[in-house]
């Protein structure tokens, strides 16, 4: 039987999400469970400093795409949902404490593990312009953006029958939509 340890050991950041809209659907109940896993994470002094912004509209993801480092652009483009983990650093009894970073990281990893348990792949996105993300998502001044979790269905391997040819090259098999190329073109 699969254990939670197996699930955790199986987690890898997914860099290539499926662009098939049907494959991308994440069930609403499943999403709620995943967020619940974040909500139940432990925090210092039980402060629960976090806010989670769930972004699923392609329009917003397209804007987010512009604000992340280049190696994360495909991840943001192709994922089905991006969860932005934010925190209020001012809530802790000790001024200047960095516990809000630890606490929000814990919650986001709970979200990652819960998603993996449901077979949904994730990627931690850490390099972005915080100021611009805050402006785009209307995040208040006193709230910090800690990280984003992009999630979706991984882009599967193409089936053998699509890529293996017998005796001669079957040109029909080569007539397919290119996988490489930007989803942004499709959005436009």
């Amino acid at each position, binding site marked *: 039987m*699969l*254990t*939670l*340890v197996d*699930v*955790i*050991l199986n*987690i*890898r*950041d997914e860099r290539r999400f499926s662009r098939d809209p049907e494959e991308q659907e994440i069930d609403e109940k499943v999403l709620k*469970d*995943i967020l*619940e*896993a974040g909500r*139940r*994470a*432990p925090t*210092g002094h039980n402060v629960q400093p976090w806010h989670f912004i769930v972004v699923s509209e392609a329009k917003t993801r397209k804007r987010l795409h512009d604000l992340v480092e280049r190696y994360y652009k495909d991840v943001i483009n192709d994922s089905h949902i991006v969860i932005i983990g934010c925190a209020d650093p001012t809530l802790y009894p000790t001024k200047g404490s*960095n*516990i809000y*970073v*630890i606490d929000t*990281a*814990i919650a*986001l*990893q*709970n979200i*990652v*593990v*819960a998603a993996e*348990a*449901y077979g949904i792949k994730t990627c*931690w996105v*850490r390099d972005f312009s915080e100021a611009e993300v805050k402006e785009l998502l209307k995040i208040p001044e006193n709230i910090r953006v*800690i*990280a984003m979790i992009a999630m979706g269905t991984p882009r599967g391997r193409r089936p053998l029958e699509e890529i293996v040819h017998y005796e001669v090259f079957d040109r029909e098999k080569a007539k397919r939509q290119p996988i490489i190329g930007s989803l942004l073109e499709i959005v436009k």
Partner: protein
Amino acid sequence: MSKLVKIILNRRSVREFTPKPISDCDLKKILECGRNAPSWHNTQPWHFLVVRDREKLMKIGGVGEWNSYIQDCGAAVFGLGDEKNYPDTYLIDVSIALENMCLAAESLGIKTCWTGSMDMRLVRKLCNIPDDLAFVCCLVLGYPFKKKTLNEVVHHEEFSEVKQEC
């Protein structure tokens, strides 16, 4: 709901332990889950210091107002980060690794408590932690102290000195 997700949702911090030791096998599984955590640009800026020696745990848990439960725990895992080389990212990375361990422990029936309230100068000295590694947080692990049964604590009509478990 997925049974595995239920484990995550049911996790609670526990601060009362029986001194039952954690097996090497379980501890290794837990640490593997930490080692396997994602990190910024795969920098893996972490070290994990495992303290199981009862004498050390007695000393660490003997200082401070809220730390006595550490004296009974099975193991304390100190998450240390390479602040010098990765000042902007080590905090999140070490936290992710410790949370992986926390969830792994929970799934093995081992309870945990995140804490940073111990006297770290004492721990650094006791355990020879290099100065250039930053302390992020500690995960205290152990088997929970069992609640006494109703029969042991409830008295009917008059107080009976010797309560035995039925």
